[in-house]
């Protein structure tokens, strides 16, 4: 009833092709952003920031990046954990070598370094396709983790190889280290999320994105119509790794503060990110957020309900929690195989027609 497109007229091409063509969506989105930036930071507490929002935001960046590669370009990657590690270690080396530089710059540089590494490991994608490509990215995953575990230079020769984020500032605010305020951390991550999501959205609907999707749908056909597979595939690897590198850098420096590479950036992380992208919806910006939200928030919610409310023993609760995640994945699939993004879309369409569906 409220959710209507009637009366919404596009008077120019620009209006017609905007991200939220329905006015209600647009208002809701801007309201959401305003609340996220101007209201939430004043009410946020340590638990909400460190256990819920920061991981969600940071995973969302990584999911966006992986979605560009897997969802838009059709290249399956299981190396995301390794690329996150590149971002984390790049930011660590930068922040310990140049302590006085604005930390946001370090994060961006870490993203660019990861992009370079990503292109390098993306080279085999020119020859290998489909599930077989997973091997190239898996090689990256295991090799990078091994490397960061082995070569002392990366972790400043500490005896354990664990890297610790010392306090660093950005625009005068402390964003890393134990004393940094959670509101600052939250706003810092949120800014990256918003900017990167905008970039992703505009890349994917522009000529670059169209090339990626052409490659995904049929690479030979794309080549014939003039898409250069070399630049298209490698640019997808570069952009995707840039995103994932930034998320890895934030994950280490802002969220965890101390990271053991073999533990935090293991193959499990790569799988988790792939699950997020698939469950959220391949080739969808919203899907990246939905997938990250589902796999980060749902277990926390379940845990709080089962042990916090009902007082279940923690191990039973965890088993049930794991099972419920699995069950929900299967149920979602049977209801709507194309991920939560599609589910969301259907819901919106139903809503638009409600209460007169015919």
């Amino acid at each position: 009833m409220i959710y209507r497109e009637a009366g919404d007229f596009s008077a120019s091409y620009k209006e017609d092709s905007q991200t939220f063509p329905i006015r209600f969506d647009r208002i809701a989105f801007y309201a959401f952003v305003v609340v996220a930036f101007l209201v939430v930071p004043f009410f946020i507490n340590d638990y909400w920031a460190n256990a819920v929002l920061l991981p969600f935001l940071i995973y969302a960046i990584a999911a966006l990046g992986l979605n560009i590669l897997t969802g838009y370009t059709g290249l399956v990657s299981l190396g995301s954990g390794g690329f996150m590690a590149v971002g984390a270690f790049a930011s660590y080396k930068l922040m310990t070598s140049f302590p006085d530089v604005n930390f946001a710059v370090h994060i961006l540089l870490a993203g660019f370094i990861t992009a370079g590494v990503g292109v390098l490991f993306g080279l085999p994608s020119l020859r290998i396709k489909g599930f077989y490509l997973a091997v190239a990215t898996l090689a990256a995953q295991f090799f990078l983790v091994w490397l960061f575990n082995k070569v002392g230079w990366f972790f400043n020769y500490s005896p354990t190889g664990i890297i610790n984020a010392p306090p660093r500032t950005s625009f005068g605010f402390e964003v890393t280290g134990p004393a940094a305020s959670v509101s600052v951390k939250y706003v810092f991550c949120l800014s990256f999320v918003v900017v990167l999501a905008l970039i992703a959205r505009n890349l994917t609907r522009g000529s670059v994105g169209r090339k990626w999707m052409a490659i995904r749908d049929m690479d030979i056909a794309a080549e014939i119509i003039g898409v250069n597979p070399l630049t298209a595939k490698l640019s997808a690897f570069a952009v995707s790794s840039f995103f994932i590198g930034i998320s890895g850098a934030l994950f280490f420096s802002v969220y965890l503060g101390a990271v053991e590479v073999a533990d935090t950036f293991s193959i499990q992380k790569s799988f988790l990110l792939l699950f997020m992208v698939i469950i959220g919806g391949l080739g969808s910006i919203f899907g990246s957020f939905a997938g990250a939200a589902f796999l980060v928030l749902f277990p926390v919610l379940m845990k709080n309900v089962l042990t916090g409310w009902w007082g279940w023993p923690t191990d039973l609760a965890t088993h049930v929690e794991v099972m419920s995640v699995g069950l929900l994945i299967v149920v979602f699939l049977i209801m709507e195989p194309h991920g939560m993004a599609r589910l969301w879309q259907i819901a919106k369409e139903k809503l638009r027609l409600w209460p007169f569906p015919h």
Partner: protein
Amino acid sequence: MKLKLATYALAAVMAAGPAMADLVFPSLSYRTGPYAAGGIPFADGYADYFTMINERDGGVGGVPIKVIECETGYSTEKGVECYESTKGQGALLYQPLSTGITYNIIPKTGVDNIPVHSMGYGRTSAANGKVFEWVFNYPTNYWNGASVAVKHILDQEGGDLNGKTIALLFLNGAYGKEPIPTLNVLAEKHGFDLTLLPVEGATMQDQKSQWLQIRREKPDYVLMWGWGAMNPAAIQEAANIRYPMDHFIGVWWSASENDVLPAGDGANGYKALAIHAPGNNFPLYDDLKANVYDKGMTAGAGDQSGTVLYNRGLYAAMLAVEAVKTAQGIHGVGQIDAAMMRDGMEALEMSSDKMAALGLPGFGPEFSVSCENHGGNGLAAVQQWDAASKTWSLVTDYISPDSDVVNALIAADSAAFAAENNISERCN
């Protein structure tokens, strides 16, 4: 939908609101995941001891203890969630039983002012109380452990290790890499060769290459820094190649029944370091039986009683309770807070009389903690497995480590941490 989820989660957090009338000990346990086999007995022991104190004495100094258990699955991210959800509930002390989570919490301790006790794990240089105000790792740490192991080997070899080879089989991660610097220094000092054999955590059951190498090169001793499925796999492989088991020495985390039982008779004679005695032959177990087991108040299935890791849980809880008593003595109040708890830990003294009075005669080494020294005296013993009777027994007294070597390393590492994080030394 996101908002709705958020509301529920918020309500859940509110429901688990603070209850300040107790001594709150969060137990960041892992009863699931790849390391559950080690996490379950520890968590059971930790909780059972507190239950016993509540049932028998009505708490410590009249104030009951409340244990909040939170499942981490050995994952650092879940550990963060557990830490954040429990720290507002009056938590007095964290014992995360995970290297990753310990490293994650250490920087926060100074801000949240809640002490961490990583008993025989975590960051070794935290033994330096001048830098790490809120972190304790008494009674001993990995570097002392490595030194004690080498001392034990020296004993067996008549005091001379020149030209001998010692191999270190370790989990290729932060935990496993801990003893390497110490062993390097000791190798130089005593003239033995050190061979490093890393085992990748993701595929820790597959150690064929490492053991083939051991079989080829025949090192005189093998030390092991393993955890989880790595331990039983290593002991099985050692039995397979007929490596002399009494020359195979694990750290105290490679020292449980879970590790030796799968190898059956082949594990006979395997040695491991110990920071407390094994078995249930202590008067305390009568109290546990009367106040916990018989009342059906056990934390887990109740089948872990008397195992090495269960005892370790008991030991950790016992040290926590003793620190509470010390703190109550210092400050003269029953309901202590986290800062007082820290003072209690810093003044903790464990003498053999004290342990005997608690019903645990000779259970652990004697040690004392001070402002400078958060690591105790670093003593550890050696225990050996008897496959026929399926029991561990201590075969040495508590051995003191080579403090000159270890303390120099601790000073260097903590100084690096202090410089990186702009911490000025205290206790001056």
